[in-house]
């Protein structure tokens, strides 16, 4: 869907150019891979070839010639042949090149471990977008690519929202639903109204109240993409994360509704307010209902897909996307995918689970990258905005101020009802984590310039606000979290005791509530569980799955993990036991396990690991020598198969102790690191297989650091390469921003932006040098 979506991207570009160029010229690219050059796939400057400096500067050089070349009418027959073929492949080609640029950018950023700890990825992507935008502008004197709202809402946002919703831990979400809804609805309304009124009161721009209310509505929405991008690297505790993230997802409904209401006010004039109020309440709930309906349909369909395993992932994607589109049909924003997880994951095969997980995360990651890059690019389009210092500064102050006030106020109210009160530190993180992002930008670009005369000012302000929140707040939130000693997410390995007792506690609390006559949370939860067990699961789960118990599944998983860690530990002598000290009594527990598990031959273990998966369902293994644990291991073998394959290694992971092979094993079984860890190869897949608690797309340095511990011998040499690349990278930014600055000296906004680039690249290089030498 991304690919087709990016078609939309090219249409404005096409429209722009065909307007200016001679009508005979069919192809729609600004730099006709200069007719003298007959080489077809010559990506032009504005396509942004993979971010390598030399290519770019060469292309900028080419770009200078292009305006001249663009005036050429098309040449004779030989070129016509060339042109025709180019236009034939152009659209997918450009799309692919953009995706490639985005992906290569990610690779480049993660070349340096230290760099990525300090700077969140979103910042770097925006900076890259700025640079690319500058390059495009230089090349064609006009901005060709920008974040098109239709593209954004129809293709980019659903991938991210769908990914988040599908992997949302439902229990945690519903536990905190009250707080999330309060912040989403009440908080957003408060922010919107206050910002709008205060901006109007400041008598800026001479625009009227409605315009400011509209602007307040769209700037007050906390953005899910930005929150996800930043919070995933910060690792606050789960409750805090889910509240902020849930709020960011649900408040879109409020924002969009408010936006539409005000748009209609502005267009038609004041009308009856009743319908607006009515919509606001219904919006959120309606959106989630749509999502839940589709989740039920999805669960039901997957019940019957046993014979058509290969297209199971397709159902998941289609229905999640349809849920989103259906909600969009009714102008709601849905939390698509929520609730589906439990039933779908139980019904579909292991391979499909892997596929779904991996694909969703890949798509969401790419969508996020593209969004940020395009945010940067769109900012560099000077024809689209106008700068007003007063508006910008007032907006920045007001949104921070009202967010803080709103959070404090609502928390005070909520704490009277919550079991676990939210303390001051939580409130600080919540108000600081209210990042604005691409949604606000998309909405502001959608404004009609005829109706809203101040649109250009609003666009500029939105860009600045988004940049400020993502970059400044994103950069500083990590040190803030550390400084405030916010409880971080625990990366504990779930033990069977915890599983048992947590379930027991649920029953105990239900009983207590029944005795005390309270119709409390647990009472309703228990009722829901009964309903689920008796009706819903029967309908949605496949018969063979329905009979399994959750506790047994949890036990199996734990057992598998331990069994494999046993193998891992009795592996080669070069094995390094990193992090095992943090688990008390771990090695002794494993030794006991070793005795307990009834196989004594490592060779047998290894052979089990390479058994063929899924085609033979685990229950049918009737080998009398194996205990239940062996049955578990057959399951592992299936998973390990999947795990092995993306890394492209040989089929004996336990034997090949290459560095990356080790990462594979460590990834699967050593849960010492936060489960959002990822190292270089495709082992995010592996973690995704086993660590099902936290959805993760991002990469932190945990795995890499562990990696470094392992390869201590190599560190100095490696370090110097990294350092050189960092320095080089920063100097590159410095140089490019300087160049762009020189060209566009006269515009205030550019001055600001480029000064920002310039100083930030200097800053980064200084910081990194310091870090390196410390």
């Amino acid at each position, binding site marked *: 869907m991304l690919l087709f979506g990016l078609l939309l991207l090219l249409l404005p570009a096409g429209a722009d150019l065909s307007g200016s160029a001679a009508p005979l010229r069919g192809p729609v690219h600004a730099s006709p891979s200069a007719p003298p050059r007959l080489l077809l796939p010559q990506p032009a400057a504005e396509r942004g070839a993979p971010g390598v400096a030399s290519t770019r500067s060469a292309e900028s050089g080419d770009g200078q010639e292009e305006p001249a070349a663009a005036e050429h009418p098309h040449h004779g027959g030989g070129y016509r042949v060339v042109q025709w073929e180019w236009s034939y492949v152009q659209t997918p080609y450009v799309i692919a090149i953009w995706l490639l640029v985005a992906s290569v950018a990610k690779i480049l950023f993660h070349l340096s471990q230290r760099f990525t700890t300090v700077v969140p990825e979103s910042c770097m992507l925006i900076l890259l977008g700025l640079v690319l935008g500058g390059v495009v502008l230089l090349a064609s004197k006009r901005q060709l690519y920008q974040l098109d709202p239709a593209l954004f809402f129809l293709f980019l946002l659903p991938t991210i929202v769908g990914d988040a919703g599908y992997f949302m831990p439902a229990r945690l979400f519903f536990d905190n639903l009250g707080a999330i809804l309060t912040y989403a609805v009440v908080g957003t309304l408060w922010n919107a109204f206050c910002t709008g009124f205060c901006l109007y009161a400041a008598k800026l721009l001479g625009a009227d109240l409605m315009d400011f209310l509209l602007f307040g509505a769209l700037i007050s929405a906390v953005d899910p993409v930005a929150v996800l991008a930043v919070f995933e690297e910060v690792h606050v505790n789960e409750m805090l994360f889910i509240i902020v993230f849930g709020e960011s997802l649900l408040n879109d409904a409020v924002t969009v509704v408010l936006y539409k209401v005000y748009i209609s006010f502005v267009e038609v004039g004041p009308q009856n307010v009743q319908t607006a109020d009515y919509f606001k309440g219904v919006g959120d709930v309606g959106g989630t209902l749509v999502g839940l309906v589709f989740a039920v349909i999805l669960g039901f369909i997957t019940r019957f897909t046993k014979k058509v395993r290969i297209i199971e992932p397709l159902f998941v994607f289609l229905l999640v996307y349809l849920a989103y589109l259906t909600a969009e049909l009714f102008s709601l924003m849905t939390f698509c995918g929520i609730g589906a997880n439990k039933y779908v994951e139980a019904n579909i095969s292991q391979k499909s689970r892997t596929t779904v997980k991996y694909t969703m995360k890949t798509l969401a990651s790419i969508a996020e990258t593209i969004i940020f890059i395009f945010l940067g690019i769109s900012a560099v389009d000077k024809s689209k905005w106008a700068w007003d210092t007063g508006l910008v500064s007032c907006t920045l102050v007001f949104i921070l101020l009202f967010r803080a006030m709103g959070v404090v106020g609502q928390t005070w109210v909520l704490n009277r009802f919550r079991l*676990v009160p939210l303390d001051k530190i939580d409130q600080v993180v919540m108000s600081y984590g209210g990042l604005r992002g691409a949604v606000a930008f998309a909405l502001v670009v959608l404004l009609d310039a005829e109706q809203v005369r101040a649109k250009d000012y609003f666009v500029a302000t939105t860009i600045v606000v988004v940049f400020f929140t993502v970059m400044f707040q994103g950069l500083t939130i990590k040190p803030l979290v550390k400084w405030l000693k916010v409880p971080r997410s625990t990366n504990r390995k779930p033990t069977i005791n915890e599983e048992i007792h947590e379930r*027991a506690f649920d029953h105990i609390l239900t009983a207590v509530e029944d005795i*005390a*006559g309270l119709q409390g949370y647990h009472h309703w939860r228990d009722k829901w569980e009964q309903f689920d067990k008796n009706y819903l699961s029967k309908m949605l789960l496949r018969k063979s799955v329905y009979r399994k*118990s959750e*506790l047994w599944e949890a036990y199996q998983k734990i057992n598998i993990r331990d069994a494999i860690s046993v193998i891992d530990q009795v592996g080669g002598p070069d094995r390094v036991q990193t992090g095992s000290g943090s688990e008390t009594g771990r090695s002794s527990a494993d030794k006991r396990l070793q005795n307990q598990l009834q196989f004594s031959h490592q060779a047998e273990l290894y052979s089990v690991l390479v058994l063929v998966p899924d085609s033979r369902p685990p229950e049918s293994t009737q080998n009398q020598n194996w205990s239940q644990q062996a049955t578990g291991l057959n399951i592992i073998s299936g998973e390990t198969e999947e795990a092995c394959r993306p890394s492209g290694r040989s089929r004996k992971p336990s034997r090949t102790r290459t560095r990356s092979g080790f990462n594979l094993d460590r990834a699967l079984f050593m849960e010492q690191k936060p489960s959002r860890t990822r190292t270089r190869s495709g082992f995010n897949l592996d973690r995704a297989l086993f660590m099902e608690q936290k959805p993760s797309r991002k990469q932190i340095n945990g795995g890499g650091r562990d990696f470094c511990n392992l390869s201590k011998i190599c560190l100095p040499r490696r370090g110097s390469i990294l350092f050189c690349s960092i320095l080089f990278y920063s100097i590159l930014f410095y140089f490019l921003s300087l160049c762009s600055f020189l060209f566009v000296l006269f515009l205030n906004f550019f001055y600001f932006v480029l000064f920002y680039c310039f100083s930030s690249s200097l800053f980064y290089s200084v910081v990194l040098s310091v870090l390196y030498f410390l």
Partner: protein
Amino acid sequence: MGSSRSSLRRVPDGQQLLQETGFSAAVLLRLHQRFQFLDKDSRGHLRSEDLEAELSENPMGDRIVGAFFQPGQETVDFPSFVRVLAHFRPTEKNRTRGGEQPEPANSRNRKLKFAFQLYDRDRDGKISRTELLQQVLREMLGLQVTEEQLQSIAERAIQEADLDRDHAICFDEFRKSLEKVNIDHKMSVRFLE
């Protein structure tokens, strides 16, 4: 506040219970009303049948009911009723209580001890394998799993928690195995109106 104070006099040992359990007066009154509702014959104490009647099918149900009654006793009066329920009050964050005050009923330690006693039916201070196996797991999992699977789970559970190798879980081991769980959250019920 005045009216509830006066009606608090009807509650036996009202003031003392207020201090001991930390419930507010309103909650205490409500619990008293509940007690009177459950005590259908107005005897002033409850029997286990009264409590059991309230529970829907709950695997831990009879254990909870059993926890209200002291060993050997057949009835529970209102102060004991409230004291047991006090374990489930949400913990407050303030730690300013002096050293001479007894540990409040809803502290983390007391909650865990209460839970431990639920498992340890014979009150010997340890959760043995059979206790875990038969009583807890069987009741929770019902007919969904086979006997063999249950045994594996029980064995594994004991092995994980049992640090002194006596094949049973004493209170300290129990507490240690749950040290990462947010007990304040998992073992608290909102008694608000």
